[in-house]
C-alpha cells in the first residue's frame, strides 16, 4: 500500500483513532492531548516526529472552541507534524460510555480487591477498576461541559 501524502488544512492536525475493531475517528483538529506511557503529551500542528506507547488514560482534542474527550486503553501513538495516529487497544468517545456499566464494574472490582484472592485475580481487578474509573471520569466531563453551556 502506498503512503499518500497527508492533505491537511494549514494550522490543523489530522487525528486518527483506530482500534482493532474499527476506525473511531478521522478528523482535523486544533489540539490533541494524549496519555503517553511516560506522561501525558500535548500536540499542536508542527509537532516533531514522536512515537510512544500509551497507558490507560484520557485523550482530549479540541476543534475550535469545543473540546472532546475519549478514553484510550493501551496502544501506540505516532505523531508527525501534520498527523496524530492513535492505535489503541480499546477507545471510546465520552458520549458512547455506558455510565451504569462503569459503575457496576467499579463495584465489582472493589469487591474483588477487598476479598483478595489469587495474584492474577487481584491484578485483573485492579486493571478493571482503573478502566472503569477512567470511563466514569470521562463520562463525567460531558456533564461538566453540559452544566457550563
Amino acid at each position, binding site marked *: 500500500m502506498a503512503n499518500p501524502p497527508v492533505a491537511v488544512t494549514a494550522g490543523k492536525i489530522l487525528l486518527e483513532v483506530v482500534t482493532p475493531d474499527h476506525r473511531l475517528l478521522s478528523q482535523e483538529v486544533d489540539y490533541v492531548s494524549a496519555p503517553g506511557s511516560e506522561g501525558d503529551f500535548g500536540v499542536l500542528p508542527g509537532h516533531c516526529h514522536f*512515537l*510512544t506507547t500509551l497507558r490507560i488514560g484520557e485523550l482530549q482534542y479540541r476543534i475550535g472552541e469545543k473540546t472532546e474527550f475519549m478514553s484510550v486503553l493501551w496502544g501506540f501513538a*505516532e505523531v508527525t507534524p501534520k498527523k496524530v495516529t492513535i492505535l489503541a487497544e480499546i477507545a471510546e468517545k465520552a458520549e458512547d460510555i455506558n455510565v451504569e456499566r462503569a459503575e457496576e464494574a467499579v463495584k465489582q472490582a472493589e469487591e474483588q480487591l477487598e476479598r483478595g484472592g489469587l495474584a492474577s485475580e487481584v491484578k485483573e481487578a485492579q486493571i478493571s477498576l482503573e478502566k472503569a474509573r477512567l470511563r466514569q471520569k470521562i463520562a463525567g466531563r460531558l456533564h461538566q461541559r453540559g452544566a457550563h453551556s
Partner: protein
Amino acid sequence: MPSLQSLRRKIASVKNTQKITKAMKMVAAAKLKRAQERILAARPYAHQLREVMSNLSQRVDRSSHPLLSRRDGNMLELLVVTSDRGLCGAFNTNILRRSAEFLDEQRRQGKQVSVSLIGRKSIDYFKRRDWPIRQEWPGVFDRLSFEHALDIGQNVVSQYHAGTFDHLYVVYNEFKSAMQQEVIIEKFLPIESLHEAQADDTQSIGGGYLYEPDEGELLETLLPKHFEIQMYRALLESAAAEQAARMTAMDGATRNAGELIKKVTLFYNKTRQAAITKELMDIVGGAEAIQ
C-alpha cells in the same frame, strides 16, 4: 431414447440440487456479510499499524531486532491460507496453483522450501505433493477469532527465532469485493518496510525522532503486535473472500441448474407428445384396419 420415467427422475434430481445450491448461496451471503464487516473493521488498524511500523523500521538499525534483521540463509517457508470447505469456485485452486508456481521457482533459485498449511483444502493438496509440510491448522475458519492468529503467529515466530526458516511468505486470497478476490503473496518475515525507496521522506524529518520509552522497548512491543495483526488480517481477508467466492459459485450453479431443468423439461414434453402421437396413429391405424 430415455424413458419418460427416467426423464422425470432426472428433472426431480436437478431440482433438488438446485434447492441445495440456492440454500448454500443464501448461507454464504449471510456469512459474507459478517465476514465483510469484520475485515472492513480490521483493515484501518492493520494499515495504520503497518504505516507506523514501516516509518519506524526505516529509522532504526535493522539488526537491532531479530524480526527486522535480514538473514542470508536460504530456508524459505510458505504459509498457505485456503478454506476448510470446498464448493467455492476457483478460490482454493487459484491459491494452490500460485503456491506451487512460487515454490517451484524458489526451489529453482536454490532455496530450501517448506510449507505450513491453514485450511483443510491445502492440507489435502500438499499431502500428495513432495513439499515438506511443517505444520497444519485445519478447522481455523469454523470460528475464526484473534486467538487463532495469535496461535499461528506465535508458532511461526518461535520457529523463525529457532532458525527453522529465514524467510516467511504468506499466500492468501484478498477480499476485493463480493465479486472479486485476488491471490496475494506477501513477505511476512523479516518485516519489510513499505517504502524503502522514499529516501526523501526520511531526509525531511532530519533525524529528529523522539521515542518514548526508548527505541528498543518500543520495537519489542510493536513488532510482535504488528505481526499478529497482519496475521489476523490475512485470515480475515481469506475468510471474507471465501464466502464471496462461494456465493458467486453457488449463484452460478443455481442458474445453471435452472437452465438444465428447462432443457430437460422441454425434451421431456417433446418425448411425451411424440409418444402420444404414436399411440394415436396406432389407434387410428387399427380402427381403419377393422373397417
